[in-house]
């Protein structure tokens, strides 16, 4: 009954896999500061992985966070859209080839959108979330048809 409206308001969930906090600060900026205000796009941050529709992942997937990441991803229901924020999850970035890195992220999960930058500009994050919403709508449609 609510599925028609659900496509209009995806919930964002944030996973930090050992980032330097740069991208997380930019994510917080995008969400909390009225200047960027990601909620204009109809989305809202959630605290629970079970409610997540669009997952924003930061960090290069360190050895310590790998297990938590996999456990977290198992809790997120389909259909979901994974967005890699920053060069860390996309390619390892400046931490690439380090002994303590188990990335990149697409080794663990199917990524949909990459937003590169170190850190990412809030405007680029908005771009990425807008793209993710587009993909998410397609996925929801396919999910209902299947």
């Amino acid at each position: 009954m609510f599925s028609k409206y659900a496509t209009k308001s995806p919930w964002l969930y944030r996973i930090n896999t050992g980032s330097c906090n740069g991208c997380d600060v930019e994510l917080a900026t995008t969400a909390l500061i009225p200047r960027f205000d990601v909620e204009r796009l109809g989305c809202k941050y959630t605290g629970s992985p079970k409610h997540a529709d669009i997952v924003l992942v930061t960090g290069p997937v360190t050895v310590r966070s790998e297990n938590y990441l996999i456990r977290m991803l198992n809790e997120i229901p389909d259909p979901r859209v994974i967005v890699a924020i920053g060069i860390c999850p996309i390619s390892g970035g400046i931490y690439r080839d380090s002994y303590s890195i188990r990335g990149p992220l697409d080794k663990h999960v199917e990524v949909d959108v990459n937003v590169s930058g170190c850190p990412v500009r809030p405007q680029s994050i908005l771009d990425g979330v807008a793209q993710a919403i587009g993909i998410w709508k397609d996925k929801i449609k396919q999910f209902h048809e299947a």
Partner: protein
Amino acid sequence: MAGFFKIAIRNFLNSPTTDPYPFGETFTPENYRGIIDYTPELCIGCNTCEYVCPSGAIRVREKEDGSGISFSFWLNTCSHCGNCGYYCPTDAVFNSNDFHTARHQSEKFIPTIDDGISYVQCSNCKQKMKRPVEALLARAYEEITEEVRHQTSLCPECRRMKRFERM
């Protein structure tokens, strides 16, 4: 209390602080270090940018067919540090103001810049060599005479021989 009302009324009269992006234009600072831009006309193929890049985003290699030097840049590992632009002797590579870095996963491994320069031929022995670049000549010589022009059209080997003959 009066102060509170003053701020509230002022904020009520001001326009919204929200940046209209992505529905409208946004402000980008002049010195914002965005996606790398590359001018092949200025590049001398010296490899400095690849050497100083901390994230290995730039690759400068001899082309497979030996016709020149290729320059490729992979956005998805660039940390926008600006080292390449700072150290490039001719400013062939620099940070543009472009911040549109959100890409679909299918484009992940497509190089953002895939360009390069071609070799020229030595005017004497027809050997392939890197071409001279005006910007660098202007820095090296006070005045670019005919003699200098002739010298730069020669490969290093021929130039050495010519100099030797003159002695």
